[in-house]
């Protein structure tokens, strides 16, 4: 067990505030009168509703199906009647509404028929299809569809499988509590992951401020027939970031702009392993999760929460207190402020943190940057935040990208240490969104230009075709008086080179357009969020269609 650990640069020792919530027993699910279930529970394409208003649904019944490759199904968290399929406020900082299915619960909590999966007899792709229909997504924060993550790439295996139980954000203890109470089930889920990924090196990283979880997990790991190493990693924020945990455990750095799977490492959160256990061994879809309710409440605690439960119900269950100044979804370092207290819990909700002036005093106003580089010392991505700040502030997005803006993981360490109290991460988010917006605009402009170029090409082609036809007709008229073999050779000689030249011309034009595009394309397509990547992929697909359309007439020309 004396594995050599590696150190990532930067990071912080934060007051962890974990003891408040991790000693109370897990609160059982509360059944609210209404469940509001967002269809955008995961990164990727939102699920598509398959129920109608007024329909009665059972607990665990699929109410929206996965749509597209990067997607997962969504289920009713309890039995009842579908009351609405409309736009509702969802847990997003913007406060913008999104499509949700509202279920009025009937209090019976009546399950659908659940059938465990025999994952040994099913093919991996069948297992993945089932998991997609059971709504499995990563519960570590990114909510990436689990079935996609469980698909090995072209190399057929991910040699290293890491289970992330680091949980480095202050206040949050849902993974800690889950490991303490459900270590055996997590290990069962892990063995399914191992089965699907064929990993040889299975590591579980847990920060050393959770001795109880470490002991429970070590005990459970000993009962597995696959060798699993449970490793205590130093408590240092953001040690639970996937890239940081990989570095700590393996010494490898995920190359900038790439994914951990590119170097044969797949990482799952312990909560995902637990959800996978439920899916495979119980046949239960992902309809509830562990949520920490902490901060300014009477009894900070962890609760098993049905997806769709309004957050305010959790606060009431933990004991409301006066003087709330807002709630966060997630921890104080990376959490998202909620527009309202009644927004529903989603699969990404690991913590509902209730703020008060005493716990979270308002931040002092910012002074100018004095370039003290405390931020650079704290940055776990080894960036120069003071330079990124300068570029973001002056809208110098090109330089910001040169200085690796998109390698920023928005962990908040820089803002935390800044003696000038500059909300640095806000500036980076602003710069990133501006760059995305500009890329989108540019893509649209490129598309318009391509369409225009194709139109010009088509017009010229039609003109020349007309001319050819006229010429051909003239030739036939002339040929009526000349010998037939002469005519055949003449047309063969003239028609072919002409078509070839035309083809070459078109090919050259397309190549030029592509080269121009490649030259002009900014480097910001590296390391985007899965959502953006997918949007880009969709745009690319549309452009490919247009390009294909440009080729089609040529092929039609060949056939007659």
């Amino acid at each position, binding site marked *: 067990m004396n594995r050599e650990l590696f150190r990532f640069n930067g990071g912080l020792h934060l007051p962890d505030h974990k003891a408040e919530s991790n000693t109370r027993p897990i609160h059982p699910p509360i059944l609210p009168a209404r469940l509001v279930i967002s269809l955008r529970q995961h990164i990727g394409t939102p699920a598509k509703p398959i129920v109608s208003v007024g329909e009665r649904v059972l607990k665990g019944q699929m109410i929206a199906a996965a749509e597209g490759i990067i997607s997962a199904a969504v289920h009713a968290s309890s039995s009842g009647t579908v009351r609405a399929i409309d736009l509702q406020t969802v847990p997003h900082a913007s406060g913008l509404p999104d499509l949700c299915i509202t279920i009025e619960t009937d209090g019976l909590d009546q399950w659908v028929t659940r059938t465990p999966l025999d994952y040994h007899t099913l093919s991996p792709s069948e297992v993945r299809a089932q998991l997609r229909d059971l709504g499995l997504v990563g519960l570590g924060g990114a909510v990436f569809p689990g079935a996609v993550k469980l698909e090995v790439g072209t190399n057929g295996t991910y040699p290293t499988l890491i289970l992330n139980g680091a949980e480095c954000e202050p206040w949050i203890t849902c993974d800690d509590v889950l490991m303490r109470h459900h270590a055996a089930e997590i290990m069962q889920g892990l063995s399914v992951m191992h089965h699907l990924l064929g990993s040889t090196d299975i590591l579980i990283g847990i920060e050393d401020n959770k001795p109880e979880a470490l002991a429970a997990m070590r005990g459970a790991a000993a009962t597995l027939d696959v060798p699993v190493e449970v490793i205590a990693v130093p408590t240092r924020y953001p040690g639970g970031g996937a890239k940081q945990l990989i570095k700590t455990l393996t010494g490898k750095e995920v190359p900038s702009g790439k994914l951990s799977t590119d170097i044969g490492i797949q990482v799952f959160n312990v909560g995902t392993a637990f959800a996978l256990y439920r899916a495979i061994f119980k046949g239960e879809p992902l309809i509830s999760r562990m949520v920490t309710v902490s901060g300014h409440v009477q009894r900070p605690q962890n609760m098993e929460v049905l997806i769709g439960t309004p957050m305010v119900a959790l606060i009431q269950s933990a004991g409301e207190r006066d003087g709330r100044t807002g709630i966060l979804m997630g921890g*104080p370092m990376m959490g998202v402020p909620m527009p309202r207290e009644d927004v529903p819990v989603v699969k990404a909700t690991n913590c509902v943190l209730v*703020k008060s002036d005493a716990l979270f005093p308002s931040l002092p106003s910012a002074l100018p940057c004095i370039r003290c580089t405390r931020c650079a010392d704290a940055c*776990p991505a080894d960036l120069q935040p003071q330079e990124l700040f300068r570029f973001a502030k002056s809208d110098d997005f090109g330089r910001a990208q040169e200085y690796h803006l998109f390698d920023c993981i928005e962990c908040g360490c820089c803002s935390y240490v800044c003696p000038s109290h500059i909300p640095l991460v806000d500036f980076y988010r602003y710069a990133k969104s501006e760059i995305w917006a500009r890329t989108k605009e540019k893509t649209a402009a490129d598309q318009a230009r391509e369409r225009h170029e194709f139109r010009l090409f088509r017009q010229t082609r039609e003109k020349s075709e007309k001319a050819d036809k006229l010429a051909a007709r003239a030739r036939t008229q002339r040929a009526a008086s000349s010998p037939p073999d002469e005519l055949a050779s003449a047309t063969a000689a003239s028609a072919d080179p002409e078509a070839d030249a035309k083809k070459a011309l078109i090919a050259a034009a397309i190549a030029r357009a592509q080269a121009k595009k490649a030259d002009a394309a900014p480097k910001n397509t590296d390391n985007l969020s899965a959502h953006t990547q997918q949007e880009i992929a969709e745009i690319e697909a549309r452009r490919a269609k247009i390009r294909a359309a440009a080729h089609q007439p040529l092929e039609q020309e060949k056939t007659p």
Partner: protein
Amino acid sequence: MSSPFILDRTSVTQVMAWVLVALLPGIAAYVWLFGSGILITLSIATVTALAAEASMLKARGFPVKPFLMDLSAIVTAWLLALSLPSLAPWWLVITGTLFAIVVAKHLYGGLGQNIFNPAMVGYAVLIVSFPIQMTQWAGPLELTHAHLGFAHSAAIIFGADTPLDGIAMATPLDALRTGLLQQNTVDEIMIRPNFGHYGGIGFEWLAGFFLLGGLLLWALRIISWHVPLAFLAGIWLTAGFLHFFDPGRYGAPWFHLFAPSVMLGAFFIATDPVSGATTPKGKIIFGLGAGFLTILIRTWGGYPDGVAFAILLMNVCAPLIDTFTQPKIFGEAPKTAK
């Protein structure tokens, strides 16, 4: 408002306050070695700096209180005051401080925007404009045996008494420079009564106490080791190189190191983050360069000391140094592989 929602309570004010605290051992040594006149100089500089800062903030439409409370103006004032000759006339202090705050700081955009270290700009302006006043030091008490009371010091500073009558003395660096110009060897100069173990009598102790304050800043992680160590190394290596080849014409490296200006420069001035390099490698280049230039200017330049000009010259280079010393980021292939 978005994440993070908590922060470290360290503020610019705290950082600046620690810099002031770290200067206290040096100031105490100054009083002990050169008399209490420095306290008057510090006060004049402080009042001038705060007044200039407040009026500039007001003129530029900034909120006066939060910016005045950052204490950066006082740091500039103290650093300049400690660089001036002891018992420098009041108008010299005011002129230098005004130039530092008004021109070098605010006309360049205020806190965080100045290309040059304000205190060093103030110093440079004074030594170029008033070379005589800037090289007239009241010698250490140990050598002059003067009974410089507070009132007497004040009288000298405010011009009510004959300036520095009988107590004026060349600084060790000045004495070395003049001695060398008069064709003396370094050894002949060093045995004169105003030289001590490493540097000049009194001056070497002052340097030691500035060093002590600097180490405090390092221990508190207000500054990193890079710039001071590189600066001292730059001085030591350059002076050592010259001294090794011709000990008769070039002062010993220890002598060059144990000047108060070097310790003040290494730990308090070259470490100014606003005008210095920010990358780890860049800080080392910055420090080495400043040390190297200091010795060049001391040896071949027109002034006995070169710390101020060396730092100002390196300030010019800082953005370029930063550009070319960007460290490898997490997950980036080693630069050589490109």
